[in-house]
């Protein structure tokens, strides 16, 4: 299939035509033409490399009522993604070559994004002994990111071994940093608001203490460490310090931690319950600054679909997590691009280039240039869209942005030259 994209502004630059052929970008230039090519009018649209998510919960196998690999893939494509890392906390847990290959195959069948399974660090996410990390790395799924996400690898000796062991696999441990003894029963950020609302506090120190420990361990054993969903100003400070000392640490931040604060908990509506919790204004600003200056490497959605009954309840009994794939780019636009903290190249770097590098993905996070894989998206930066939960492609409805107007609209997404999204709609 051959496609010509007319007049796209690559990374916000001057308009150019893109010729997509045989899964690659065949040419970039002016007035390109090819016989029989589909023409996509990209007047006024910004072209970015296809986004890469390091942190997606697709819920399959186990909770297909909340999301499937297919519905999650569609949501991802609509958000401009061409690759997503599927977290391991499924049922059964993705802790064997068999399960990661199953998820990988389901992704291939859906064919909307590259679904890259994350392998569990420990058997059953129980934090007791290592899962067969080598078998998952060697499987068809080629796992490179290992995480017990949802659970912290809290045992320092086990964490050290995991960091060391994955060096042989060119892998990385993605840590959900949460000291479990400091967060027993925790419901929201610990501070003025938790005190008043009577919700058990989740102290920033419970995240920061684990990150501090882990960067020291990573330095000691010379391993790569990735920190999931950094949520506090203190965590940014520790990461900045670690990077200045040459520690091989990378980190991600979620769209919701870039936009929302703990003030959302005032409603007691569990759509705003998430782990780590929404924090303070000061944290939000530190996270934006950290992402802008590169201390935080990537935006990762932590897209966490939940069935209605798991959210339509009292706060304490609701499951934590919120949707993110379809609005991530818009949130980055609002919180970083529009205020001038990040340019389009910066967006490409934090949402595609660096996450692809962390996940060791070939073919993603590449420049929009001749010869490169045709993984890209077209964005209308001038559009403003009011988020309607019922209109989402995800099987779940737990978006924290319902009713909110956000900038930007993904008009088209191409995976290896094939349109997965056109005119803002998923291609059937």
């Amino acid at each position, binding site marked *: 299939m051959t496609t010509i994209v007319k007049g796209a502004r690559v990374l916000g630059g001057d308009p150019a035509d893109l010729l997509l052929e045989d899964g690659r970008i065949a040419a970039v230039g002016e007035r390109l033409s090819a016989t029989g090519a589909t023409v996509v009018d990209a007047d006024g649209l910004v072209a970015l490399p296809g986004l890469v998510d390091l942190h997606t919960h697709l819920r399959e196998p186990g909770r297909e009522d909340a999301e499937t690999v297919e519905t999650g893939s569609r949501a991802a494509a609509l958000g401009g993604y061409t690759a997503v890392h599927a977290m391991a906390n499924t049922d059964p847990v993705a802790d064997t070559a068999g399960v990661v290959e199953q998820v990988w195959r389901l992704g291939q069948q859906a064919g909307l994004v590259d679904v890259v399974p994350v392998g569990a660090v420990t058997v059953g996410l129980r934090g007791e002994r290592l899962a067969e990390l080598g078998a998952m790395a060697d499987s068809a799924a080629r796992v490179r990111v290992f995480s017990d996400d949802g659970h912290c690898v809290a045992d320092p000796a086990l964490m050290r071994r995991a960091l060391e062991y994955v060096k042989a696999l060119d892998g990385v441990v993605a840590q959900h940093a949460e000291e479990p003894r400091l967060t027993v029963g925790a419901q929201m950020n610990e501070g003025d608001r938790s005190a*008043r609302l009577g919700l058990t506090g989740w102290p920033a120190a419970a995240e920061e203490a684990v990150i501090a420990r882990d960067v020291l361990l990573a330095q000691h054993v010379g391993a790569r460490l990735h920190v999931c969903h950094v949520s506090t100003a203190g965590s940014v400070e520790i990461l900045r310090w670690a990077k200045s000392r040459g520690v091989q640490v990378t980190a991600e931040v979620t769209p919701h931690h870039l936009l929302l604060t703990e003030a959302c908990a005032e409603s007691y*509506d569990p759509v705003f319950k998430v782990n780590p919790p929404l924090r303070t204004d000061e944290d939000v600003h530190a996270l934006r600054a950290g992402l802008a200056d590169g201390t935080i490497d990537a935006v990762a959605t932590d897209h966490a679909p939940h069935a209605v009954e798991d959210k339509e309840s*009292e706060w*304490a009994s609701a499951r934590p997590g919120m949707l993110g794939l379809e609005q991530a780019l818009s949130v980055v636009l609002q919180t970083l691009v529009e205020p001038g903290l990040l340019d389009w190249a910066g967006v490409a770097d934090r949402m595609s280039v660096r996450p692809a590098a962390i996940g060791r993905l070939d073919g993603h996070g590449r420049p929009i240039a001749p010869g490169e894989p045709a993984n890209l998206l077209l964005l209308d930066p001038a559009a403003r869209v009011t988020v309607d939960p019922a209109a989402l492609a995800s099987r779940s409805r737990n978006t924290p942005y319902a009713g909110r107007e956000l900038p930007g609209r993904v008009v088209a997404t191409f995976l290896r030259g094939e349109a997965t999204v056109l005119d803002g709609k998923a291609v059937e």
Partner: protein
Amino acid sequence: MKRHLLEAADLDRADATLVLDTAAQIDQALAGREVKKLPTLRGRTVVNLFYEDSTRTRISFELAAKRLSADVINFSAKGSSVSKGESLKDTALTLEAMGSDAIVVRHSASGAPHRLANWVRGSVVNAGDGTHEHPTQALLDAYTIRRRLGRLDGVRVAVVGDVLHSRVARSNVWLLTTLGAEVTLVAPPTLLPVGVGSWPVTVSYDLDAVLPKADVVMMLRVQLERMNASFFPSAREYSRRYGLDAVRMAALGDDAIVMHPGPMNRGMEIAADVADSVRSTIVEQVGNGVSVRMAVLYLLLGGNA
């Protein structure tokens, strides 16, 4: 008055005073009557939806509703469809379909009454939610103080004990300060929430320093289990440092009163001779609770429908 009573933090001075004044009028109207009953809520239905055991609070609300001639349904979550997993929302919609005009809810989850208020058309009264609030307790405490001391403005109230886990403490902080009282929280630092610094109160770790200046000492129940989570080393050490015994009570001013929301741990936070002393308002609080809850139901349901 608003449609619901979800938290004391919601009440402004005028609304809070209206509740107390209404309770006083109700007390006056019923004083000396043989049949303690008013016809105001005849034909209205009040549901007591209790997800936690609290016989005293439930009975108090039940009595309040019955004295206003309302029909009362007690719905205990134990042994009902709720224990088989029915959601709070489904339960609320079921009760409303049965014609409830007000739901009085007690729940172990903070914010449960707020959620309920989104789902039903009738009034919701918070009868204690998790570690958040217990607004009618604060109203009855304020009513008791006003009756005993004749005022609330400038009254110095020491709230002593497990503030961290206490919905009574939270409601009293907001209500009493709204009504002009000066509140001091006294507790070991482990039993005060991080963030207490933003509350309009004074904080002290030293009970003996606070007592001579207090007009009211409100003792909170301290659960012994807290000891196991290292909130304090032992029951003995707790009562030595923060318990109110006769020796400490002697440091109080002549007119100072001692309050406790009940149920008490005699010998732990309060000594038996203190609980039974003339300063103690503990039994009076129970009686005032009925009047204040009558006032709340009356004001929310608007009397004659």
